[in-house]
């Protein structure tokens, strides 16, 4: 019984992990249909912000929850103004440009900080015992953070004027422009917010992963698959795809081992996209965001 409960929490964490790394990409994709291949590097930059800040004495919670999203949000703003805004509607070109951007970021970080950076941070929460099994308290905290984040995004979209304008632009950009909304400003704000969420995710994951310049390359594949499988609705898409893919991955990893866990995730994604090419929310939950 303890094992079952402990395992259920573990799988829930796997789902939350997938949702966390995909949410930033989903916001950008859902709004602007821009596939940002530098998303993994935003995660990496969030992690580096936390490592560098804590190495210089900043409190870890401040670094993770405030500094990382702020820094990466500003970087996202600069990227949007200098690069992305010229490429809306040109999907292949954005793929190429953002891939080049990711290589640039990796190169800059390697030149400035070296191939590996020593760190003093450890997960700021201890282990939690459930019967005979211990779980990572920090992982439980992350599950909680992901839920809060999803609720925050939902509330922003539903109840603020920014959210209203954003939803309008997502539905029909031309009509929104006719009604006087500056779509380029909305895109700029959304991209920065998406980057900030990615920075937050990277910062939160820094204590439990290695922070290296090319750690972003590992995240981008899973985030990409989750977002495409989810479809164009930001919240419903990310949540449904994370639950499905993260659940399959977690269960298969426990039963057969991590290699087949990864295979199962990819196989599920392939079948999903074959049956529903526009993602889960292209077929179900079509009216949600």
């Amino acid at each position: 019984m303890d094992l079952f409960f402990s395992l259920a929490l573990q799988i829930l964490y796997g789902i939350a992990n997938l949702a966390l790394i995909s949410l930033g990409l989903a916001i950008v994709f859902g709004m602007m249909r821009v596939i940002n291949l530098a998303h993994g590097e935003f995660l990496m930059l969030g992690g580096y912000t936390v490592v560098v800040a804590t190495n210089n004495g900043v409190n870890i919670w401040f670094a993770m929850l405030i500094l990382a999203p702020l820094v990466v949000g500003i970087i996202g703003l600069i990227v949007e103004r200098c690069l992305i805004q010229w490429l809306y509607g040109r999907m292949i070109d954005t793929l190429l440009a953002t891939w080049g951007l990711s290589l640039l970021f990796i190169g800059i970080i390697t030149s400035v900080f070296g191939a590996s950076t020593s760190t003093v941070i450890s997960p700021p929460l201890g282990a939690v015992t459930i019967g005979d099994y211990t779980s990572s308290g920090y992982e439980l905290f992350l599950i909680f953070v992901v839920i809060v984040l999803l609720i925050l995004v939902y509330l922003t979209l539903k109840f603020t004027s920014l959210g209203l304008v954003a939803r309008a632009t997502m539905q029909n950009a031309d009509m929104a422009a006719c009604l006087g909304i500056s779509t380029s400003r909305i895109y700029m704000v959304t991209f920065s917010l998406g980057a900030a969420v990615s920075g937050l995710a990277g910062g939160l994951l820094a204590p439990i992963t290695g922070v290296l310049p090319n750690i972003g390359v590992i995240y981008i594949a899973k985030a990409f698959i989750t977002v495409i499988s989810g479809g164009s609705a930001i919240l419903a898409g990310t949540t449904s795809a994370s639950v499905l893919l993260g659940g399959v991955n977690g269960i298969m990893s426990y039963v057969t081992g991590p290699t087949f866990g990864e295979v199962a995730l990819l196989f599920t994604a392939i079948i999903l996209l074959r049956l529903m090419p526009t993602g889960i929310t292209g077929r179900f939950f079509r009216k949600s965001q």
Partner: protein
Amino acid sequence: MSFNRRRFLKTTAGAALAAPALMKSAMAGGHGAIKFVSILDQSGGLDIYGKPMVDATKMAIDEINEAGGLLGRQVDLKVYDPQSSIQFYTQFATQAAAGDRADVVHAGITSASREAIRPTFSRFQTLYFYNTLYEGGVCDMNNFCTGSTPAQTVEKLVPYTMNKWGKKVYIVAADYNYGQITAQWVQKYVRDNGGDPVETEFFPLDVTNFGPTIKKIQSSGADMVMSALVGGAHVSFYRQYAAAGMNKSVPVASTTFGVGNEHKLISAEEGDGMICAYSYFEEIDSAANKDFVARFKARMGADAPALNELAARSYEGAYLWAEAVKAAGTADRMPVIEALRSGLGIDGPSGRVDIEPKTNHCNQNVYLAELKDQSFNIIESYESQPPTDTLMVCDLVADPNQAVFKFENGLKAAGIDI
């Protein structure tokens, strides 16, 4: 002025007359620089291993040149960066062997890259040194493997940790040839020492979520974990393991942790208590090592990476080759190989390193160390350990014309019972 045929003929005639002088210095053969080529990853995921190795190689070559070179000739070092991609390894290997006509190549970090380029050097008859620790089993007259092998390190690590922590061992390893074969060695040594390898799991190199495995370790009742995980993504295992509070109750020993300076990537609370075995640690307390470390740090300045077996062995490998060239009196391949196999050795930072002629591997010192506060404290040392794993399957004295990797299909296929 205009460019007409007369001017053109005059210019080319002048160039044709001058050509022999230019070509002579380029093809100087025995009278020009000796060509030393290094192919090591300095970007991509494997740069944590490759960059310190390149730094150490450069230091060795600069020291050799400052001391007057070899046989009165300077050593010309050329470094290629395969960017953690096997495709570039094969490309640069062919370039080094056929294009640059290198006198020696020191290359390869992962066993996968070594196996991709070893046949190329065999075919072009270019002397090849592989200085990275690996799973043993290369039986190749043209290839000198100077790194430590499981019979030297793991064979000491397993009984020590089993005595300290318990007999039930859970093995986690990277999912490619090094991880698979090292896991088989660990299983063999665990059983030889009366233990029980409860479970073995393999991880693709880009897995970062180790949660399900950590749960399995808990439910398996293991006393300790033996890790052969490789690369930046796998560092997450140690962090998540400590986050679940497991590093105190089921401790970890590793055959790979530290050679990418991973001990700096995790905090002291996460890493304390881990035990590793290599043939070099920066903390070795000998005059030769202290001098080497001081020179390296002075040369690299504030950005000096931590020193580990890979970097130190790259330095010692370069010196082993240099000594052989001096002993042979020439940089040609076969005389240098014969000089190496005559039991040649050097006193390097790790101690005495000499070539074992039946295998073209090295007898070397081995040290066990425990991690504390992001640095290693040496707890046991063993002198001049022979590479008994490769000795089990390889005898180049009896049969010199070999160029194979005996463990390609696993230990059982090579006749070793696990």
